[in-house]
């Protein structure tokens, strides 16, 4: 007899995170030449030195900022799958602006202008998908993905062509001047001012979501669109607006990477950060405050997989597998359990439905399950 138990958000997170850790351990034991050192490298090395710890925290910064962006869109039931392109394009716009202004204006002006350029570019890209959804009913999920995939290739093309640093053999832009880069907080690591900025951003979003009218209306759009329309909430404006803000935050994440650890944009800049941000937002289970632990968790996994790549030669794509494992289970709403000791008549068995969550297939989920 197959039955299932409903999962609370906490249990869901534990299931997803636990599976990722278990899978990490299994793969390391099977694939690493020496399992024990590999396990130590993966789980503990990120905490072992100022450099490693600071780098891990720095790795969480783009995940926090872009994660908030994904979460905002999720809450209004818009799926922004274009994070990769928005981060890349935002970074490129920020870098170009910074390079153009660094000799002409004061550093602070150049920094603020390049951040603004990055955010604007991200916002523009994402709002196209919002507009297409509002005006023509095109799925924003597919349009944002397609647009982002094209943007990533076009940005690659710019970096191998007009924007390439003539002095470098690599496909990268010129380096921004030192004066434009954010101050470092924990040398020798690259942890910089962007970390407290990201924390502030999480706090501010949480505050706005709970107290402001916009936060309230946005949540209504997300939970019940028909009701939102009935209340006179401009649903279409919220579609475009949340996508734009989501894109702006992805652009900001890209801009801060340029102004912080990298100082330039190189080919393949986004490197999966957009997808990781989606995992972070999912793991946060709809809570702004949850973004912080979720981002730190994924930053830890990333730092650990970097360590085993250096230490044990495990390919760095390891992290993508762990992320996927967590993502698979993070929306699980009920867990099948085997019960042999209690016989229940087949006709009386109901498959417990997910109460609040929309069903996986978008259909009503409360129909009684027919057991074979």
């Amino acid at each position, binding site marked *: 007899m197959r039955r299932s138990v409903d999962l609370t958000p906490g249990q869901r997170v534990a299931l997803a995170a636990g599976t990722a850790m278990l899978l990490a351990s299994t793969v390391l034991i099977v694939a690493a030449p020496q399992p024990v050192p590999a396990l130590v490298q993966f789980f503990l090395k990120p905490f072992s030195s100022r450099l490693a710890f600071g780098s891990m925290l720095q790795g969480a910064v783009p995940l926090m900022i872009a994660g908030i962006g994904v979460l905002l869109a999720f809450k209004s039931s818009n799926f922004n799958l274009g994070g990769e392109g928005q981060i890349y394009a935002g970074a490129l716009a920020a870098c170009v602006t910074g390079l153009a202004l660094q000799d002409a204006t004061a550093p602070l002006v150049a920094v603020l202008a390049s951040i603004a350029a990055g955010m604007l570019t991200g916002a523009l890209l994402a709002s196209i998908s919002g507009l297409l959804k509002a005006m023509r009913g095109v799925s924003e999920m597919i349009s944002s993905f397609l647009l982002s995939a094209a943007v990533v290739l076009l940005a690659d093309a710019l970096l191998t062509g007009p924007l390439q640093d003539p002095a470098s053999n690599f496909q990268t832009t010129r380096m921004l001047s030192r004066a434009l880069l954010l101050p470092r907080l924990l040398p020798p690591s690259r942890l910089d001012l962007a970390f407290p900025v990201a924390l502030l951003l999480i706090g501010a979003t949480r505050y706005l979501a709970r107290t402001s009218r916009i936060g309230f209306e946005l949540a209504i759009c997300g939970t019940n669109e028909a009701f939102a329309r009935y209340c006179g909430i401009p649903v279409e404006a919220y579609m475009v607006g949340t996508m734009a803000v989501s894109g702006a935050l992805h652009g900001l994440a890209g801009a801060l990477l340029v102004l912080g650890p990298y100082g330039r944009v190189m080919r393949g800049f986004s490197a999966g950060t957009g*997808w990781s941000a989606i995992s972070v937002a999912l793991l946060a289970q709809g809570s702004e405050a949850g973004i912080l632990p979720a981002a730190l968790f994924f930053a830890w996994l990333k730092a650990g997989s970097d360590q085993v790549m250096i230490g044990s030669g495990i390919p760095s794509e390891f992290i*993508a597998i762990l*992320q*996927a494992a967590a993502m698979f289970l993070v929306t699980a709403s009920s867990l099948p359990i085997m019960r042999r000791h209690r016989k229940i008549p087949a006709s009386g068995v109901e498959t417990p*439905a997910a109460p609040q969550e929309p069903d996986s297939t978008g*259909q009503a989920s409360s*129909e009684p399950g027919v057991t074979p």
Partner: protein
Amino acid sequence: MNDQSGTILLAILKAAFPASVPLLFAALGGLFSELSGMLNIALEGLMGAGAFFGMAAALVTGSRLAGLAGALAAAGLAAWIMGTVTLRVRANIFITGLALNLAVSGLTTFLSQLWFGTKAVVNVPLPPLSKQAFTAVILAAAAAWICCSALVLHGTTFGIRLRATGMNPTAMTALGHDPDRYRLAALLISGMASAAGGYILALSVSAYVPNIVSGRGWIALVAIYLGKRRPLAVAASCLLFALAESASNYLQGVGGMSPLIMLALPYLVTLISLVVGTGARQRH
């Protein structure tokens, strides 16, 4: 129209038919799951799984058919996992689909490094087969697949029940059928068909090339929309996208444009056709 542009058009048209085959397999496979009420966004990942595991099996055995079996088995397993997590554990299918795409792109690179010692192209020596014979075989397979999927979806009890599941799962339950069984079957079909598409893609260059699918799974998804969920119209949409692809391949050779821009073109064409093609039917 002068003579030269006529030959060019003919060349583009001739290249478009074989180029449409991988799309056809994935799109008509995806149609099964779409009609059962689930938009399967993992077609991209399933194609990638088919290309990698198919070529890996072909490399080990030296046989194209064994490779196909490997591709079908691997993608079938992936689709089964995705289906079980979605239907039994009641996870969100968009998210599990996304996870599958992510898992495949990570896992194939990971295993490529581990098994073949490279993240780059893996050449697969296979028994000789002329280009014409290969093209003829895949075109015949594609034609068979179009007929077969149209017949199954519209002419068999299974197909009618599968479509009924998509329209009204509660009615299916009332009739004593488990909608989840039809959905799982549809997911398996979409997974295996996509895998066959990805495997054909890799076979046509006799190598596993990383990221060889490069968005074709998403294009197949849009072909389902554009074909308004009717098998023959979906097939026609695939041919249209294949024409765009072979035209951009041709321009890449002649126009001297950056190949990266040309690679971006199919995504943009797909997006534009999605915008033009939607409107009549609103989703969500």
